[in-house]
């Protein structure tokens, strides 16, 4: 599903990734872990095409990213749900509209949008907060809105960048459970985190990265 082959990324003479090679199978749930600045976010950014690799090749499903035309990028991104580290929620829109945005860009009718947003709000247990604005929500609730927005378009891949960054242990466990449920429905899930608690005893593959290189792999 996701294949990195000898990928390097350099920012201002400093290598963020060095000859990274790994694969994530279709329907798999895996973790990328490592200290801050190890290159975890860069890997995710390359997958959702926010960054381009300087060397190597990346393939997502049947798309070879270096050969992808710029005009095709939006259509690839619609297949990838992203839980951003900084949430990227729009403060001037309520929860419903923040999630609906992901469907409206696909040109869905308002009826379809309403149906699907309410359904996904039920999944993340936030139906009662549909009219609330992001700033009135707790960190955990905001995180669930971001997850709802990421999965509402039924993507084939779900990426999560430090999804439990500022959350307490119970909320973090709830978020992990949610990812497992999403994965159980067939979505490939890749989570970048420095929080070992998140993948401990999950029985999922954990790719360890440090200073831009893969330093090991283990089962969580």
């Amino acid at each position, binding site marked *: 599903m996701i294949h990195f082959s000898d990928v390097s990324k350099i920012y201002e003479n400093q290598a963020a990734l060095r000859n990274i090679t790994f694969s994530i199978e279709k329907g798999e749930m895996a973790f990328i872990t490592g200290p801050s600045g190890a290159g975890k976010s860069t890997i995710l950014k390359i997958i959702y095409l926010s960054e381009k690799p300087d060397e190597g090749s990346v393939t997502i499903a049947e798309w070879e990213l270096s050969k992808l035309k710029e005009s095709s990028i939006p259509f690839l*991104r619609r297949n990838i749900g992203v839980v951003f580290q900084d949430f990227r929620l729009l403060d001037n829109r309520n929860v419903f509209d923040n999630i609906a945005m992901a469907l409206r860009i696909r040109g869905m009718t308002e009826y379809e949008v309403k149906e699907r947003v309410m359904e996904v709000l039920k999944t993340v247990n936030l139906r009662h907060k549909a009219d609330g604005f992001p700033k009135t929500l707790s960190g955990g609730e905001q995180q669930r809105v971001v997850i709802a927005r990421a999965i509402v*378009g039924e993507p084939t891949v779900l990426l999560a960048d430090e999804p439990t960054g500022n959350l307490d242990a119970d909320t973090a466990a709830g978020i992990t459970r949610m990812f497992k449920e999403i994965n159980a429905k067939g979505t490939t899930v890749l989570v970048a985190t420095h929080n070992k608690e998140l993948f401990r005893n999950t029985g999922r593959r954990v790719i360890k990265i440090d200073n831009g290189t893969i330093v090991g792999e283990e089962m969580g």
Partner: protein
Amino acid sequence: MYILYSLRLAIQSVWHEKWINLLSVLTIAAGLFMITLTFFSVYNMDLATKKLPEKFSMMLYLNNDLSEHEVGNIMSTLKKNNAVERARYISKDKALEELRGVLKNADYVLEGINENPLPASIEVKLRQESVSISKVKKLAADIRKIKGIEEVEYGEQFLNSIHSIKAGAQTLGLFMISIMSTGVIFVCYSTVKIMFYRRKEEIETFKLLGATRGFIRAPFVIEGGILGIGGGVVSLIGTMALYYTLFYKLALTMPIFKIIVFPSEVFIALPFVGLALGVSGAVIALGRIRFS
């Protein structure tokens, strides 16, 4: 389907940033109003110069010894010419009679002249479309070749002046309209650019969620169009108000204003001109949207 959503976003944005948008609409309206006045002036000037050639004529002075038959031949040659609308023969006697009519009480200047010194002539009126410098010059040259015509006279300087005024007014008008149109486009460009930067974060999120260029651009293009239409409507109202207060009311006391023509059907197009300029400004402001 997203056009409806884009329309909603555009209307929300126009309302949300109402003061800056109102200022833009008024600036666009001022620009369009000046374009209208320029067009209006050029149009009326053009109309006035078109009317002047109706008075334009050529005088052909004939040799003294022409027979009636020869004059008839010249007249029929002239009438066959497509540029000639009508030709009138003025005999020597008729010319003297007309001169006396012109001199009226001053006809004593002709006392003591025993022989009629005036030549017989033909007055030629040209078709309006033929009253251009090049055509008149060519026609004069052709006429000079006709046997029996001694001299051809026409207001060459007068004709040159009319055409210079007309060409000058048109060039100046075109220049002014171009400058003003660029100004209106620039106002729309700046407004949309400001809106775009204010919503940069939102646009970045749209891009990451998979929005196409069309989806991102549409609300801004619609917003540019709304500003343009708004400016067009305000300038139309201003133009109408100016026309009715200034020309309609003034014409009652100052009849000279009656000759001014107001092409109202042309000015109805103002909102559409505004729309086109507004959309152009927005499209230029958005430029090329990059995804990575």
